[in-house]
């Protein structure tokens, strides 16, 4: 903590403290209500509450998949089915000798985890619709198998659910079992949600390309989330089987998936408390509206349609009313970037990239040196952004090599660039609209964390240290670009020019050895361009190699140490700004007389 950021942090902490307490109070009240419910001594209410807890155990995991990662898992009821049959079949001895029920419950968690990953596999590579279809197909197939595999599942007749022995025997013992597991699921998923993994998930949801540039590997992260969500679903299934005391395939309708789904959507994406309340309300509501029970699924579906059409972000979207006053601020770059040996050298040699017959880059050589601002200019379609994309690893050129300090960089692996401390911004800012500015910037530091997924889940010390360090660094980065007062504002409330500076702050979180800026001045006013120029220059003087793609000739000639002019994927000219300015071909082709 430094004197410059202290007042800012204090102010932010003041607002955050209240929000935190609000969140905590709701949880404490919910917990107390749950703990004291048995005092009513009403077994009917007890059963409804147990069902709500069980649904929430599943929904808590699903919330990470749907609410955070934005994957449309519409058939997650399959995990409930799978878990229920696993626990029931193992405990009843339909497969070999009967297992102890607690062990069988554990097994259903494992089975759920395995199938959560299998069902999730297409989501790692493909567009969202395929994943939605896979979960739907899996739900269909699990039911078909449950009907056909009579030896194990009892077919259409069904099989008895397990009875847990003391201390969690049927009645209030089992009630507390469900309660504790629901609380545990809440705690673990809330920890993930507030960790760098949670932010990375949201980044995958709303700004996937930028997430990769920040070093977030979508497959690895989603795999862990599917594992967790599957395991929670399986365990919920085991509990469900015990609650139902007798299970048939009819008990697991696809409509239950809709209930889980809407509970999360109503509560709002990227929240834990909201979906928890949503699930609770949706479970309890039909009990008080008996004549409507027949129509409940219809109403859920209608509600889903309404939410999607009217408030796609969920109710949480409506609650963001924070204000802001942008205040420009001088640089604190020295501390943001740290002290680093500024001698990185990135070389591109003989890069050739074709899209079909189009030669986007046609034999490009380029050197980007530490401590220098290297301008890349040229007419539209000359391959500037494509060059950035090659360096970022989005494209694989047909020929040529890309080296950093002599080491070869693999292509088509955007997420490993962050480890080499290569950061970038995008032509159109790619930010997570629903997250705060601070969170957006913290995403940029994801690779600097040390804690594992499990540590975050259990909120162990290393996770908390990560969070503190990341937040401080992000505040510092924001101050350096002059946006610290907007830290808590939702990113989609920012003006265009502010988004450009947020992207730079996010890139700075990597303490970049190389920073690539793709038309950062586009859409900025003259005053903002002047500030931007000063910022870029200061960044490069700190030892960072800056590659600047830009159309504003004045900015280029003002701050660049060297300039390369591209035309049709080839180098038309290269040299100092003064040389370029007097280069005959460049002047006639591009700059104008």
């Amino acid at each position, binding site marked *: 903590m430094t004197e410059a950021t202290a007042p800012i942090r204090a102010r932010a902490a003041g607002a955050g403290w209240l929000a935190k307490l609000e969140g905590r109070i709701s949880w404490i009240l919910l917990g107390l209500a749950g703990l004291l419910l048995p005092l009513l001594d009403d077994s009917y209410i007890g059963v409804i509450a147990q069902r709500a807890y069980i649904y929430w155990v599943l929904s808590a995991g699903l919330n990470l998949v749907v609410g955070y990662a*934005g994957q*449309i898992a*519409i058939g997650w009821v399959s995990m409930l089915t799978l878990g229920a049959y696993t626990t029931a079949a193992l405990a009843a001895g339909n497969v070999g000798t009967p297992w102890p029920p607690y062990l069988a419950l554990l097994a259903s968690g494992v089975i759920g985890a395995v199938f959560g990953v*299998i069902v999730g*596999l*297409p989501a790692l*590579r*493909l*567009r*969202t*619709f*395929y994943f*939605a*279809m*896979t979960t*739907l*197909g*899996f*739900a*269909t*197939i699990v039911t*078909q*198998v449950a009907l*056909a*595999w009579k030896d194990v599942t009892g077919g259409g007749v069904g099989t008895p659910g397990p009875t847990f022995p003391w201390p969690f025997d049927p009645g209030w013992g089992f009630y507390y079992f469900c309660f504790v597991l629901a609380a545990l699921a809440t705690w673990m998923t809330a920890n993930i949600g507030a960790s760098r993994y949670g932010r990375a998930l949201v980044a995958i949801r709303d700004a*996937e*390309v930028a997430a990769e540039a920040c070093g977030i590997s979508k497959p690895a992260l989603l795999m862990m989330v599917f594992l967790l969500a599957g395991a929670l679903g399986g365990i919920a299934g085991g509990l469900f089987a015990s609650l139902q005391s007798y299970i048939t395939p009819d008990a697991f309708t*696809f*409509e239950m998936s*809709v209930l889980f*789904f809407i509970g999360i*959507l109503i509560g709002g994406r990227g929240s834990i408390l909201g979906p928890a309340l949503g699930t609770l309300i949706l479970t309890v509501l039909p009990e008080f509206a008996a004549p409507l029970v*027949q*129509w409940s*699924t*219809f109403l*859920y*579906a*209608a509600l*889903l*349609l309404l939410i*999607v*059409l009217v408030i*796609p972000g969920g109710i949480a979207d409506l609650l963001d009313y924070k204000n802001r006053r942008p205040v420009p601020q001088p640089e604190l770059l020295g501390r943001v970037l740290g002290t680093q040996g500024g001698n990185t050298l990135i070389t591109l040699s003989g890069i050739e990239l074709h*899209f079909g017959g189009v030669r986007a880059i046609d034999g490009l050589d380029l050197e980007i040196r530490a401590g220098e601002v290297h301008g890349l200019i040229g007419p539209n379609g000359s391959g500037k*952004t494509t060059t950035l*994309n090659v360096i*970022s690893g*989005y*494209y694989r050129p047909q020929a040529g090599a890309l080296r950093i300090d002599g080491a070869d960089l693999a292509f088509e692996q955007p997420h490993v660039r962050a480890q080499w401390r290569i950061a970038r911004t*995008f032509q159109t800012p790619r930010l997570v609209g629903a997250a705060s500015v601070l969170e957006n910037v913290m995403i940029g530091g994801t690779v600097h964390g040390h804690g594992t997924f499990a540590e975050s889940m259990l909120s162990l010390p290393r996770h908390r240290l990560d969070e503190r360090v990341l937040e401080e660094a992000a505040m510092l980065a924001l101050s350096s670009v002059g946006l610290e007062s907007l830290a808590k504002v939702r990113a989609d409330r920012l003006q265009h020019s502010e988004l450009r500076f947020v992207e730079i702050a996010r890139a700075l979180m990597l303490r970049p050895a190389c920073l690539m800026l793709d038309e950062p001045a586009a859409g900025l006013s003259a005053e903002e361009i002047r500030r931007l120029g000063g910022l870029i220059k200061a960044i490069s003087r700190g030892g960072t190699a800056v590659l600047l793609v830009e159309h504003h000739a004045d900015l280029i000639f003002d701050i660049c140490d060297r300039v390369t002019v591209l035309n049709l994927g080839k180098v038309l000219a290269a040299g100092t700004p003064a040389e370029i300015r007097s280069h005959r071909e460049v002047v006639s082709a591009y700059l104008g007389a």
Partner: protein
Amino acid sequence: MFQSIVSYGLAVGAVYALIGITYNVMFSASRVFSFTAGMLGMLGGVLGALFINKLGMNAVLGFVLVLACGAVLGLVTEILTVRPVLKSIEQHLYVLSTLAFALMVQQVTAIEWGTEAQPFPPLVPVGEGWLDQKFWLPLLACAVTIGGLELLYRKTLIGRAFLAIAEDSYAARALGLPETRLRMASFALAGVIGTLAGFTGAQMLLAFFGNQSILNFYGFVPVALGGMGSNRGAVIGGLALGLFQQAANFLVGGIFAAVAVFAVFIVVLLLRPEGLAGAATARRV
């Protein structure tokens, strides 16, 4: 046994193929995969049984009415669930809006029609074995649909306009094509094809509200195998899926059939996400 595998497999496969084409027709016009495809298939059977069995209509009249209902539902789908979310297609909200609409229709069906599978009337009272209507009718419907679409797309101006929209909707709009009207027409056409699939396959699949989710998934598998938007791929994939499923059902049992189809689906998606016959996708940055 061989005969029943082939006849039954091809017939079911033809229904899957038609549902796949239903997905494709909607997808080409809007880049939207709509979960209403299975709903249309389910309704083809239920409405057919309702009009002809319950209300005692003439078979031809009932058939035409069913297709008309399909067209109307297609239009409703477009207006209610697709057009409002097209702006933000990146968020894939159409998955939820079309699914919600399909579920609403399914629930109304379950409540008003009942949750029991009900028989569908025989329309052409001739033939046994191979000649049984339930085997050749879906195949005939599939052949007519493919032929009709081929004629529409290749020989008529409106068909070419469909293709132009499918290829590049921006460019098509720049040329002055009425994109919205063409999209509505596509959804109506998809409604007709989907209910045709359900109607012709209903003797085999019965008039049953639960067919919706089954057709939604098994109708999509051929699209995934054959590549999005490829009708030829959908037909080959659909017939192959039907044959494979029936063969596995008879020879190894239903569990294996279901699991194997799902496994193949996932593996194909992972290895060739663009489909067995499709082309690779474009840039993201």
